[in-house]
């Protein structure tokens, strides 16, 4: 028989590719919902979680929108009292989403497996909420009303929260999830902005494939709703200004795109060696077949070649002579003019006419969610494969001729046998190739 792609499902990996890795549990906390069912229902319906930004920042900046997680109850979602007290919001989202994914994978109370369960997670930088130091600073002015180091040492320092260093730790999310859920296996945490979530999934994929670990929780969490982030993204000229309706996180690949809204949240996924999953009768959402990661040269990646290389590496991971068939790309679609063009150029070279591949992106619904963004893409791709529903590119209405590729507008029912999910921020690119499992 000639080498053709199979009618249904992706090609089987060759033995040299190691053990096959499947996903068996998903979890989400987002501006759309408290858990995956609510999140998915609203995502598929084309809703966005964007709200008005109030307060001092909105008074000074022309930025008026945000995409916050609302109605989230730490008391309901986190059992450990110390964690409730210690964790900043992004880490609490991670702990809750991790709980959902573990329960979904039916591992939540499996102490023996959690003892060896891996934990690979993408998270934030040091988080220091805006007014953290205010009481200390107020006690540190000298008679001339100027800041004094000596006054700080004598009086101000006592006003610093003793747990400051611990609360702000960039790895608070995975450590919190480990403490709450009893996860003790091999682990790593990544702090590389939007690349982090998929970097974590990639590290776990490699660790499972080659037998370092049998099962691992992966994901990412972030909150960009801090003054420093608003200011930095605004100064870079990337935020959507004003509050003209409709309130959207962005308009990915749309000719009217003008930037994005900042958001927050967490998404998690249980990855597992296929034989381990089958052995315990776990439900399988899909398989991870390959992964690739690149970094653009300092000259930049205007034409998307570095992203293209990451995607090709993910597809080449199967180590077979033909490029595997791909049904759909879960893209970044951040909604700035240049970034979307770069992404579209990579798509066009990867899947040139006459057989272009459709693209979907969730930034319009969720805003920009930093380290959580790639993890959302992974969860969406797996949920989509298992349910036969393709989520829409919320906010995309008028195709931009400069982004010449088919974009999923409204959600549609369609069987997805394989998909690429990637994150790209102009420098780092991480791509995973996923396949449906019979």
């Amino acid at each position, binding site marked *: 028989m000639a080498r053709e792609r199979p009618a249904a499902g992706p090609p089987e990996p060759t033995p040299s590719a*190691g053990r096959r890795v499947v996903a068996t549990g998903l979890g989400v906390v987002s501006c759309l919902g408290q858990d995956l069912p609510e999140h998915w229902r609203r995502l598929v319906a084309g809703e966005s979680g964007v709200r008005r930004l109030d307060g*001092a920042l909105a*008074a*000074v900046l022309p930025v008026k929108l945000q995409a916050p997680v609302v109605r989230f109850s730490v008391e309901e979602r986190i059992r450990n009292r110390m964690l409730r007290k210690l964790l900043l919001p992004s880490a609490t989202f991670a702990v809750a989403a991790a709980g959902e994914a573990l329960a979904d994978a039916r591992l939540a109370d499996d102490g023996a497996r959690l003892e*060896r369960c891996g934990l690979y997670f993408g*998270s934030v*930088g*040091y988080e*220091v909420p*805006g007014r953290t*130091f205010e009481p200390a*600073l107020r006690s540190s*002015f000298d008679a001339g009303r*100027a*800041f004094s180091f*000596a006054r*700080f*040492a004598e009086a101000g*320092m006592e006003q*610093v*929260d*003793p747990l400051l*260093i*611990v609360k702000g*730790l*960039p*790895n608070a999310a*995975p*450590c919190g999830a*480990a*403490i709450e859920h009893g*996860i*003790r296996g*091999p*682990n*790593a*945490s*990544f*702090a*590389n*902005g939007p*690349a982090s979530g998929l970097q974590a999934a990639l590290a776990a994929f490699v*660790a499972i*494939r*080659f*037998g*370092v670990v*049998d099962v691992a929780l992966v994901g990412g969490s972030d909150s960009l709703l801090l*003054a*420093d982030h608003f*200011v*930095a993204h605004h*100064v870079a000229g990337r935020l959507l200004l004003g509050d003209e309706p409709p309130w959207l996180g962005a308009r990915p690949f749309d000719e009217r795109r003008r930037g994005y809204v900042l958001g927050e949240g967490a998404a998690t996924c249980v990855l597992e060696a296929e034989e381990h999953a089958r052995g315990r009768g776990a439900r399988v959402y899909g398989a991870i077949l390959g992964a690739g*990661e*690149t*970094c*653009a*040269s300092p000259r930049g990646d205007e034409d998307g070649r*570095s992203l293209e290389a990451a995607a090709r590496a993910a597809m080449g991971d199967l180590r077979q002579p033909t490029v595997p068939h791909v049904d759909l790309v879960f893209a970044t679609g951040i909604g700035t003019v240049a970034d979307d063009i770069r992404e579209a150029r990579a798509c066009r070279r990867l899947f040139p006419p006459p057989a272009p591949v459709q693209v979907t992106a969730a930034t319009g619904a969720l805003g920009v969610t930093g380290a959580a963004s790639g993890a959302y893409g992974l969860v969406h791709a797996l949920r989509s494969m298992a349910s036969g529903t393709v989520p829409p590119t919320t906010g995309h209405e008028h195709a931009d001729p400069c982004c010449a590729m088919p974009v999923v507008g409204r959600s549609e029912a369609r069987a997805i046998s394989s998909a690429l999910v990637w994150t790209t921020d102009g420098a*780092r690119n991480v791509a995973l190739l996923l396949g449906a499992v019979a």
Partner: protein
Amino acid sequence: MTTSRSHEPAGRPDGPDRQRRRVAVVGLGVATALGLEVDDVWRAVLAGRSGIGQIRQFPSDAFPVKIGSEVDLSALNLRLDRPPTPATLNRTLAFACWAADRAWDTAGLTVAPIDPPRAASCVGAGVFPAMESRLDGLTPAVLDDPSAIARRDLERARRPESAGQDLGSVSLMLSARFGLEGPSVTVHSACASATQAIGEAFHMISSDRADVVLTGGADSMMSMFCVAGFTLLGALSRHPSPDGASRPFDRTRDGFVLGEGAGIAVLEELEHARRRGAPILGEVIGYGSSLDAYRFTDVHPDGRGAVACMRRALTSAGVRPEEVGYVNAHGTSTYQNDRVETRALKEVFGDHARRLSISSTKSQLGHLLCAAGGIEFVFSVLALRDQVLPPTINLDHPDPECDLDYVPHHSREAEVGVAISNSFGFGGQNGTVVVRHWNGAA
């Protein structure tokens, strides 16, 4: 607490039962309070010199804890022909650049062409927000007016030195500096960051995702708010004499001493290194990690996380506990860490624990936090290369709970084939790297 090895998955790529790509150490670089050149720092550490003194980063006279192990930033004479420009570098980035330049150059990679997509950076790093820069012109009136604070934030964000404040910029900058187009990864797992980065770099090469990886760690928390935070946490030593303050495994130890700096290494696939005649300094043969899943600031009293990661590392390396000769301990000089680490070593190594040589080079340099595992990896490689073990200084009062051989006071010549380097982080992430002496043979 026992983690049975039979429960660990079989068939590791990095284990003995599968043909794997081997990982050589080919270049080292450091930025420390004891110097900026690897050989100088190594001689000082072996001689038992302390790099700890009064903090000069900010006026520290009135602070209850005012000692640290500070790097002389003005002595860093960074190359200008590589990006980025020094004007945009914070302390962490400057240390990382300096140490990476040294590691890259000594690995012979300045002259040897690399294949950019097969070269990566994977470093452990910390960049604490530069709060001091927010103090200029701060008055009570500014604090009373939230929009004034927002305007100041906006103004500050427009300055060039505000770039590079996010953690991810550390590996991104190294990738740009050396034209690496493979993965660019910043790992942050608190005090285990650099060790976990080295472990991930080891996996990148052994699983055939890269041939050359710049790894290790860089960090600086030598700022007023960090010193205040660690002091309030009760983590820092209040010992009156700077060079006596860091005293791992000593009965009178009372906390760690804050350090800063970088320890960077170039790892390379062994055959790749041999083909180009690279100087091979040692071989990374295994890595293990674990989670305490206990508390944020305390290690588990049984040392279960430390036990699990050392065991996983030995399994990964395919070496028996008896083959290990030297342990570069986490050895922070806190009451809890040093006794729990000792207990964990006994559990993992059994009777052999008493024959191990263990030392904490934090006694000379304090705790470099996210960079600690980087500089301690450098010392572990050098100990194997030179067959000489660095001492634990200030170990004047034996502690009945810390009763192993910590190489007190003086360095020691020893025949050692395999060494491990431990790091246990705040939050409960742990890592152990296994290094083997390179004798030039296969």
